[in-house]
């Protein structure tokens, strides 16, 4: 056995000392590092680890339900599947983005754009990529989830409009908030991917309809999968709206105006409650709720028939002969005419070097107020207009609410115009010519009114000088069923008309529909009487093309004890009698098909 004598091996002996020094040195280095990580930065690291595992997930609050006056649901929320990307969970950006784009048939840039829009949110914020995907898509994504780290599918409430187009302009729609809006201060409570009321009631009652989103703190693993829920703050659903609107009436008008351009509004004369409001052509509000594509949006926005315009509150048209009611009221009130005052109509009236024609070529002969309204004699009203002067006409219009916004609870209402000498001086810096008064007297020229304004004229006659601000929503009720707000009728005008004035005008308007010579005789109804006034307004046409006249009809019913007022406008519809009056006819028929007693009980019940 060979032996090796260790003693005295100075080379090796020196190494032990150094080995131990190195060992101690490293242990100290490690402990200093641990001290740094666990003690000095321990709290920071603990926070990191908590953020890692605890993720706050938004629980979208369902929007308030919208009911009609009979409790029928007009708009509600339904579950839908939305696809999100949580940037933090992405492992390979291209893999996730390209993979999802391919599965969902989307453009890569489309996804990147959405991610960019939320780039100032924390990386754990889920960015909505696509709303309301089909079950097929859900299955596809689920099957490929392993290859799509960061992609999440969430079930969330989605707005659904049960009657689609029928309530397009009335209820409006919601859509995703835009990047530009998110930058504004007024939207500070909104986050990317949130829906916001854009149109109609959805917009004007946004603050009531929108609930308060809840949140859920969940523990997630490195793949972003939920492991367990730590706590939940339940969302508070939005408040429900109960409308004055009657679904049946709305549908009837919708059908009557199908394939037409125009609008119609029905109000409860005793409260101002809006029973129906339809504008045509319309759009499908459900398209917006699942993220409308650019092409679809362009198609709607650039449609030359302007489906996005709510003609009832935004369409301004010359009122035509319906305006004669206003003159009649003012003339009788002022005592400038009475029941017997008559003028000779020879089919026209020369004035200021030209002849102002009556629509009836042969003329009406000697006419007094009753026939002048029933048969819509223009010459009678030329004369009355001259007697009144434009400023008296303007004064009356203003009191009733013609030419200005009615204050209906819809966004974007337009005013109108009933001219006055002052107005002309102000705008054109020229004096008023009496000849212009003649045009105004028959609702032409510089008179521009919306259907919602004209219904106020019918309403004030029906309701003996009183009319109310139109109101669509009757009350707002919390999700628990507590009434938050009830809208009492708001007085608009309260005119103390002479009894005779009202009697004469009402009689005449009844005659329009119910007398053989009346302009709307073809729209008379058997069991209930309707009163009204036709109007035919010359249109400007479009792009130099004359597309025909606008047809008007304003009405109230029943004639004896009116409870509803109607206005109908059909663009390029031709005569008011043939195009517009039939709409009012079906409305009245629908409203009053029941026996009088039941009907009254029901109407009282609404209030």
């Amino acid at each position, binding site marked *: 056995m060979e032996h090796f004598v*260790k003693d005295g091996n100075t080379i090796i002996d020196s190494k032990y000392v150094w080995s131990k020094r190195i060992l101690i040195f490293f*242990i100290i*280095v*490690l*402990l200093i590092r641990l001290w740094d*990580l666990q003690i000095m930065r321990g709290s920071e690291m603990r926070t990191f680890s908590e953020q890692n595992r605890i993720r706050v997930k938004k629980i979208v609050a369902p929007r308030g339900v919208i009911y009609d006056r009979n409790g029928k649901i007009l708009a509600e929320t339904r579950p839908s599947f939305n696809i999100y990307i949580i940037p933090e969970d992405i492992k390979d950006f291209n893999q996730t983005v390209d993979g999802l784009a391919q599965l969902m048939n989307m453009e890569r840039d489309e996804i990147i754009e959405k991610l960019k829009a939320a780039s100032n949110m924390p990386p754990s914020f889920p960015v909505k990529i696509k709303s309301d995907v089909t079950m097929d898509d859900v299955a596809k994504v689920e099957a490929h989830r392993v290859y799509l780290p960061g992609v999440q599918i969430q079930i969330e409430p989605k707005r659904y409009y049960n009657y689609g187009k029928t309530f397009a302009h009335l209820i409006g729609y919601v859509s995703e908030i835009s990047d530009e809006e998110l930058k504004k201060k007024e939207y500070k409570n909104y986050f990317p991917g949130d829906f916001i009321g854009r149109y109609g009631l959805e917009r004007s009652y946004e603050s009531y309809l929108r609930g308060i989103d809840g949140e859920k703190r969940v523990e997630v693993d490195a793949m972003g999968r939920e492991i367990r829920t730590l706590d939940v703050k339940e969302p508070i659903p939005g408040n429900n709206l109960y409308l004055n609107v009657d679904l049946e009436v709305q549908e009837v008008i919708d059908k009557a105006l199908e394939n037409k351009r125009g609008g119609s509004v029905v109000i409860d004369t005793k409260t101002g409650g809006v029973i129906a409001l339809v504008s045509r052509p319309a759009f499908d509000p459900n398209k917006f709720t699942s993220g409308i594509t650019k092409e679809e949006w362009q198609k709607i926005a650039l449609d030359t028939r302007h489906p996005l315009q709510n003609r009832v509150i935004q369409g301004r048209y010359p009122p035509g002969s319906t305006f004669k009611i206003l003159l009649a009221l003012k003339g009788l009130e002022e005592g400038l005419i009475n029941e017997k005052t008559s003028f000779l109509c020879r089919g026209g009236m020369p004035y200021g070097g030209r002849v102002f024609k009556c629509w009836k070529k042969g003329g009406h002969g000697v006419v007094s107020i009753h026939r002048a309204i029933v048969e819509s004699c223009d010459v009678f009203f030329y004369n009355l207009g001259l007697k009144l002067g434009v400023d008296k006409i303007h004064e009356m219009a203003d009191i009733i609410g013609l030419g200005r916004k009615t204050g209906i609870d819809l966004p974007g209402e337009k005013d109108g115009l009933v001219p006055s000498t002052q107005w002309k001086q102000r705008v054109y810096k020229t004096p008023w010519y009496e000849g212009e008064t003649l045009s105004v007297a028959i609702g032409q020229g510089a008179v521009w009114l919306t259907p919602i304004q004209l219904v106020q004229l019918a309403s004030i006659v029906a309701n003996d000088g009183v009319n109310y601000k139109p109101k669509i929503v009757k009350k707002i009720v919390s999700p628990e069923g507590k009434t938050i707000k009830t809208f009492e009728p708001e007085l608009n005008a309260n005119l103390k008309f002479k009894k005779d004035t009202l009697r004469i005008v009402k009689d005449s308007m009844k005659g329009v529909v119910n007398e053989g010579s009346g302009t709307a005789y073809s729209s008379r109804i058997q069991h209930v009487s309707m009163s009204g006034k036709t109007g035919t307004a010359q249109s400007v046409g479009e792009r130099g093309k004359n597309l025909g006249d606008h047809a008007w009809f304003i009405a109230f019913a029943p004639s004896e004890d009116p409870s509803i007022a109607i206005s109908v406008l059909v663009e390029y519809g031709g005569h008011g009698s043939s195009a517009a009056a039939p709409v009012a006819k079906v409305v009245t028929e629908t409203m009053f098909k029941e026996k009088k007693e039941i009907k009254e009980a029901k109407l009282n019940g609404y209030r």
Partner: protein
Amino acid sequence: MGIDKRKVYHLDWYLIFNGLAIFLIGIVNLISATSSFYTSSYSYMIKQLVAFFIGIGLIVFTLHYDYRVIVRQSKWLYLSGLFLVVLVLIIGLIAGGAKRWISIFGINIQPSEFMKPILVLYLAKLLHEKKKQNVPLGIKDIMFPIGAVLLPVILIIKQPDLGTGIIIILTSGCILWFVGLKKSTYAVLGIISVISSFALWHFVMKPYQKMRILSFINIDADPSGFGYHAKQAMIAVGSGKFFGKGFMNGTQHKLQFIPEHHTDFIFTVFGEEWGFFGSIILFLLFASFIWRCIKIAQSANDEMGSIVAFGVASIIFLQFAINVMMTIHLSPVVGIPLPFISYGGSSLLSILGSIGLLLNINMRRYMF
């Protein structure tokens, strides 16, 4: 050569209990590392215990043979180890993109782990043969030993198992330093290693291995890959604060933020659940264990024993230091198990076999 009572008395009980303490901590930690929040898992622990008892058997068996005999016969161990490493490249099992294991009778073993103590033994034999009293070794003396080290290392790095390759190279370096080289030899070795590092970087290392080093330098360069893992490991350890989150309460690994948390990254589990307090205790146990290994080297009967003991001390120290350092962002991420603590039969057996050698050397320190 038998084993008598005197020798049992000379067993280093300090080393045994010190090692056992670390191992028990490892077992407890392994239960947490392999359990979820809902279910405790004991299957890994049981496999680890089985490997442990096999290791005890291995120690008892090898204690019968004088370590000098083992060192002298280490050529055969070396050749069989080399054979297995070659076998891995041919019939190895692929897991996680690497061929590191071979299956023998249904048991997966990782030959590269065993190569570590085998090379210590073989180097001890080769260097001891060249060694003359108080004369540092020259470049000629170490040519063959270095070749004997590099051959398996190249094969192991090819698997790829960069971690084990690095440990073997560093351990060999420690042994050469321990034995003592001429100054000129150090210089030559230094130059060679610099050149070969460049060669390694350009020709051998795979992109993912390079990424690990790059992401060490800039941890945010690769926020979803290695940098991410390194960062999550650091967060895990740091979030333990002073007393830790408590046994089974570590969220970082249970929620899969840490890869390989029962093997290479097992310290993150310990650091997260037992905090600074637990880590001090664990580090002191390791320090004392390695200190004891050095002590055994110092008191060994002959230089051969000293070299082997020092080699084993180097392996344990290097693995401990590098493993912990990579979890606290003091070193790039390389696949190196934490001795006694990381799950893995081959690693544990290799460590226990090494400890057998230490006990063997210590037991026979008074014998001539």
